């Protein structure tokens, strides 16, 4: 490949750069569509949150210290995900794997806490069948949980890629998208924490 003229190399580099740009713009647009998806679910929650149909309201059900624990787990995972990205910039494969592992465990903790909260509610007879309020609660929070599950699956796959292939351009590109996704889910959670749990506890 040594006899390739400099202009061709230049062209190739430009192509790669453009391909990366395209992917990131596309991923951002996708995140915005996901944002609309959550916005719709928030709207549904806003409409139904008082329709308790004689059943418990958010005030009766939510336990703020527990939710705070979930929140800490998720927010810390966002921080460690950032550390993994810094390590990726420094091309430090072992650090990337370490921080991805920590992020994964924190995400799993969050998911476990959420599922056990759900289980608790269902066992007390307050499942999504109970009322319009609970239907919208489970669906909004559950959709976020589903996204977390997808994120964790993706993270596991990316860890394997990082381990097997090293921090190639492609792997770093995908890691960047994964971290965007992960931070995005954090932002959504902030809204869930505020609108569902905090407002729910105030009883508005």
């Amino acid at each position: 490949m040594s006899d390739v003229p400099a202009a061709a190399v230049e062209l190739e580099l430009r192509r790669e750069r453009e391909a990366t740009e395209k992917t990131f713009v596309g991923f951002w647009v996708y995140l915005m569509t996901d944002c609309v998806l959550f916005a719709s679910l928030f709207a549904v929650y806003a409409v139904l949150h008082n329709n308790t149909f004689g059943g418990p309201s958010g005030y009766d059900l939510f336990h703020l210290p527990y939710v705070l624990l979930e929140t800490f787990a998720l927010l810390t995972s966002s921080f460690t995900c950032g550390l993994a990205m810094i390590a990726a910039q420094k091309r430090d494969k072992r650090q990337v794997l370490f921080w991805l592992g920590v992020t994964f465990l924190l995400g799993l903790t969050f998911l476990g806490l959420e599922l056990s909260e759900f289980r608790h509610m269902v066992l007390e007879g307050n499942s999504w069948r109970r009322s319009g309020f609970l239907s919208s609660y489970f669906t909004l929070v559950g959709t976020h949980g589903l996204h977390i599950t997808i994120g964790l699956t993706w993270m596991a796959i990316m860890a394997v890629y990082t381990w097997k292939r090293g921090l190639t351009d492609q792997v770093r590109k995908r890691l960047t998208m994964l971290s965007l996704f992960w931070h995005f889910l954090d932002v959504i959670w902030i809204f869930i924490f505020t609108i569902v749990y905090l407002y729910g506890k105030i009883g508005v």
Partner: protein
Amino acid sequence: MNALFAFDLLGRLGWNQFPTNPIEMGGAAAIVLGLLFVLGVITYLKRWKWLWKEWLTTQDPKRIGVMYIIVALVMLLRGGGDAALMRVQQSISVGNNHGILSASHFQQIASAHGVIMIFFVAMGLMFGIINLVLPLQIGARDVAFPFLNATSFWLFFAGMALVNASLVVGDFSAAGWLAYPPLSELRYSPTVGVDYWIWSLQVAGVGSLLSGINFMVTILKMRAPGMSLMKMPMFAWSVLGSMSLVAFAFPILTVTLALLALDRTIGTHFFTGGAGGNAMMYVNLIWAWGHPEVYILVLPAFGIWSEVVSTFSRKKLFGYTTMVWAIWTIVLLSFTVWLHHFFTMGAGADVNGFFGIMTAVIAIPTGVKIFNWLFTMYRGRISFKTPMMWFMAFVVIFTIGGVAGVLMSVPAIDYQVHNSLFLVAHFHMMIVGGVVFGYFAALTYWFPKIFGFRLHEGFGRLAFWFWSVGFLTAFVPLYILGLMGATRRLDNYSASLGWQPLFIVAGIGVALIGIGVAFQVVQLVVSIWQRDQRRDLTGDPWNGRSLEWSVPSPAPFYNFIKQPVVTVRDQFWADKQSGKKPMQEYEDIMLPKNSGLSVVIAGCAFLFAWGMVWHMYWLSLLMIFGIIITLVVRSMNPEPEYRLTAHEVEKLENARKRQLKTYEANV
């Protein structure tokens, strides 16, 4: 809960789910025999390998576009058949005569007609035409994400297959094309019909959403060097507007369908009558998607008209900048009018007033566009080729329909005509006269660019006349019937109402449209038959203005030998005026490799949806894993592209030139 996780092999599928009455059996037989016939022909001609290699796995947007259009045209026949059945029923089902269809079957046909025409005809034609034209027009060789593009198409195909499967096994939704609850809730629609509706739209809708993202990025990031946004052809602008709407509206559809599915499967209470559900929330949500959807369909048609009118008037488009602003005003306003679909909900005078005013306001940018086209024609050298004929019909029909729409934007009037045939006439005038006519014009206009020969002009005109006269005959009576009080989806009415003559006139109109469709089929067959005399040797059969006409017809799979450089609007027209010839310089071209994984993903999506419809949850779960595994396999592929070297391009180009010589000798 237990039912959800039980290993129930066939779910609720059983022998009693196959049709028993003659018309339903006819429909089922037509689907099954049609499918067997196509498969048989392919096997007989030994074309499977060719089909797989050249078409099913292709990532060339032009071929994907052709597949979209073939599916959409077949679905047009199916949806048109539904329309004909409804017209026959309403022409004869008076008083004690109950016509040819049972009440429930009539409702299924009405629902299927709407769903098929919007999702699988109009959307299919739209994405087909965008795939064919858009990359060429902006000087790109491909779309931003070719694999995603193919996947979108196959998801669209899977959704289409699911709708048609409902003809053979089970039934289709009888709850109208948007399936309002509480009728669409489990309690009132216990069969699989509504589930078929939900899941076919969910699968096709995800495909549309991905396409929306794809084309947005294509336009934003892949334009030829020098083509600033304000130098883009108007069609590209209209697609950008439409695709932005897709990206912002389709997630709402996804949510709405998912919530209805949850109500029907795990017993949530989003839209149920009791337990704190709210049916009107469904109506709000579905129209928060549904109204933008109308503009998703019509904006690309507006773009097509802009291209057609300026080409056939030999003038640059009048008021380019105002056109762009009109598009974006429509994009914005389309999210502020959804409530006009249900003024009668009783939201109160202030809310209705707001939405009424916004609805009337949206007529302004639309009117700006109509006037711009008319001013483009003013003092132009107009040649009335078929696409231009469609435009003339469009202006008349769309204006009549639009004025009826403004009339209905007044809530007090809407209370009178809500859910009546007046409304049915209005939206058919917008969607057939505005959207479908536009797509027909586009098919005639860009056909030579894709296939290398022109469509037969005479049969095109005959089709046009039967279509437009038939269309007015079919829908003007519906305005009158609507004012007389006829509501939508009537399978029987009293003779004393005096509606029958008008329904018969409408039926005659549909028969005329049927003749128009027949002429379109003849036109296609004759054109293929005579293709050697109709070859487009120049690549520029209409004296066009934008970049797609600068490449030969049919456009090579790599689109451009060298990516064009743009300095002005209507670059190709400017080049022709100045006598500038494109440079003959060959370069290496990177193109996406074929991939069968899109077909696999869509196959999994189909079976997933099938499992959800029939409560075979094990199958759905399995298919989710199938999709994940396929995506991982795809992500492992390090080289999704291949290099077409400059030398190979030169060989291909020389072969094409030799071919061209033989054609020229034949003429």
